[in-house]
């Protein structure tokens, strides 16, 4: 008690220290903190700035300064004279119809264009939460039938176009959309099968998933294009695009099954048991309780798989189906622009 009495009654007020003042303005402070914090960091910044500047100048010279924008008629000598020092953007306005629609008859190309528009409208509608109703399934089915009719034709004065003349963007969209639309339910079924208590069903699902995931997609596509006809009875001939589509569905199914299985494992056991206790059947339990939770868990990896799958559709090039990448590649086989156009390809795909 007495020690307290020794303290001065009114201790000297010590205010908070003022915040450290950065030298110079806000920009200088930011530069010092983020680009020139230490000597190695400063060296790195200067080096990167130098390289970045060189790259930008090179890109400017190639893409803008030395580029050929328009060629008159079919004369590609201007492009050929470039020898890679400039871009040949003229190839894009010249060949864009071919890049987008491949070898589809030129006068009929409004049909694949309309199909693409329907696809995009379908995606836009499906991404709105207010449209998530049962009718959406009917809409999808109707739209896909319309797209099929448009692409094939053969009625109402539309001329019939065989599948091997389809190409470009519609093919990419068809492969990706149908692949996911059928692959996802297949994946869910296989994921459930792999977690089933029934040994025969479980081992079948494991065999399917591991076999598909163990081999490259290319060998599956080769199988679809070369081996599939061998397995069909005489006289049955399925066209190439459909065979590739089946390969894609099987491929997507195996990968999506593993993602969904991860989600199923994350659902606590109590949820299953609660479903059992309510007397729900196997399918009711999974459809109403387990799957909604499981799929919500795995939305980020599902999106990753979807994007990877969309990129993988470009592999149909190898079995000779004309998707967007192939048409772009074919359009630039014109040797004049080959080097420069490979870059224009990356901007168009």
């Amino acid at each position, binding site marked *: 008690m007495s020690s307290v009495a020794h303290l001065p009654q009114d201790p000297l007020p010590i205010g908070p220290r003022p915040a450290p003042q950065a030298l110079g303005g806000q920009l200088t402070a930011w530069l010092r903190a983020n680009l020139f914090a230490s000597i190695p960091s400063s060296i790195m910044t200067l080096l990167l700035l130098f390289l970045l500047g060189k790259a930008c100048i090179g890109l400017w010279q190639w893409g803008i300064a030395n580029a050929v924008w328009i060629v008159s008629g079919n004369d590609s000598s201007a492009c050929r004279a470039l020898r890679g020092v400039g871009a040949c953007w003229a190839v894009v306005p010249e060949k864009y119809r071919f890049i987008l629609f491949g070898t589809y008859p030129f006068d009929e190309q409004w049909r694949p264009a309309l199909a693409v528009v329907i696809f995009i409208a379908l995606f836009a509608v499906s991404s709105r939460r207010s449209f998530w109703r049962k009718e959406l399934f009917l809409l999808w089915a109707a739209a896909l039938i319309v797209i099929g009719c448009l692409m094939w034709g053969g009625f109402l004065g539309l001329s019939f176009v065989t599948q091997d003349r389809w190409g470009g963007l519609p093919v990419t969209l068809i492969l990706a959309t149908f692949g996911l639309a059928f692959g996802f339910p297949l994946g869910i079924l296989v994921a459930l099968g792999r977690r089933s208590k029934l040994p025969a069903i479980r081992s079948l699902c494991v065999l399917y998933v591991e076999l598909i995931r163990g081999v490259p997609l290319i060998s599956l596509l080769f199988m679809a294009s070369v081996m599939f006809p*061998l397995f069909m009875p005489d006289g049955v001939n399925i066209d190439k695009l459909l065979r590739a589509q089946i390969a894609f569905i099987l491929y997507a199914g195996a990968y999506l099954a593993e993602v969904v299985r991860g989600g199923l494992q994350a659902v606590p056991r109590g949820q299953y048991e609660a479903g059992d206790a309510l007397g729900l059947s196997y399918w009711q339990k999974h459809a109403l309780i387990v799957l909604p939770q499981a799929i919500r868990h795995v939305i980020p990896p599902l999106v990753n798989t979807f994007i990877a799958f969309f990129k993988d559709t470009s592999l149909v090039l190898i079995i000779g189906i004309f998707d967007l990448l192939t048409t772009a590649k074919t359009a630039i086989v014109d040797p004049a622009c080959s080097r420069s156009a490979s870059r224009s*390809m990356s901007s168009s795909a």
Partner: protein
Amino acid sequence: MTTSTPKRPPARPWRLSLSDPRVAGLFWQVLVVGIAVAVVAFLWSNAIHNLSVRRISTGFAFLGREAGMPIADSWIDYTPKDTYLRAFIVGIVNTLRVAVIGIVLATVIGTLVGIARLSSNWLLARLAAVYVEVLRDLPLLLQLLFWYVLMQGLPAARQAWKPVEGVYLSNRGLILPSVPLHEANWWTILALVAGLIVFTFVRRRLIAQQMLDGRARPAWPYALGLVVALPALVSFLSGASWSITLPELRGFNFVGGLTLAPEYFALLIALVTYTSAFIAEIVRSGIQAVPRGQSDAAKALGLKRSFVLQHIVLPQALRVIIPPMTSQYLNLTKNSSLAVAVGYQDIVSVANTTLNQTGQAIESIALIMMVFLTISLGISLFMNWYNARIALVER
């Protein structure tokens, strides 16, 4: 003392109805397996019928026949007069050559980019982010074709680019200086490997002793002896020569040196850059998964920066990194089959040519599957072993 063992409830009698879960389970299994067997049998009988119509004999006898297939880029001796079996082996070696070197390079570059993305240097972090996003979002096939077209657009051998003495970049590919390896060189390399293995054991033993009494024992004298002196001695005794041969331009092509064909080089660059973008993200997530308190605590103990990274942060980050890294390695190996698109003859390309020449579709595809399943299983087993080794040891 009486222990009451819980009595098992008496087994319920089977009811022949789908409401009995056991009967239902049996029913569904028989149904599904039956359908699967029926489908396979149907396809198989069609295949047998079609093969007999086309006069193609099944079996692997065709492997002994002469392949007549030229393979330009091969590390083992091969001529078109060799058998299909040898062509397949060349294909497998070519696949492994891309996959193994690709995995090593992708890991190194990916780790560097992943760390760069976490750098405090704003410019470096942004550039690393751009690298990752651009490479990750474009299809691999597109990137592969881009690099291949770029390779073909390079100047001819006579006007080859020469960034450094002895390194040439032309439309013949990348030509590097090389060291010719004779028997004596191999003995030296063997001594180096043996020295490294022994040194690992010695180091482990030193650390175990330090654990007992807390005294640090320097490992560098052993390293000097086993990894430097031993190979040097072997090299001296066996008279190995380590002269470097520089490639030389003679006529229209290069002589000497190590040549990476444009197809191989394009495939390698495409695979490495594409996979490294994914690996960079994995490494970044792994490092971010280590709580900041861990490195702060280590710094507060006065440990050196390199020690903190090596012994505190990295072991914890690796636990997060290894499983997704394994699937990236598997992806790279499977993606190497895109070689077909640029004409590099890997196993898929060789099998495809074989298939077109002989019509042995089932056998060729089966061989591809076997090779890839074996490689995939090998990588999985190794990575699982490594993962188990670094896993957190809990009570």
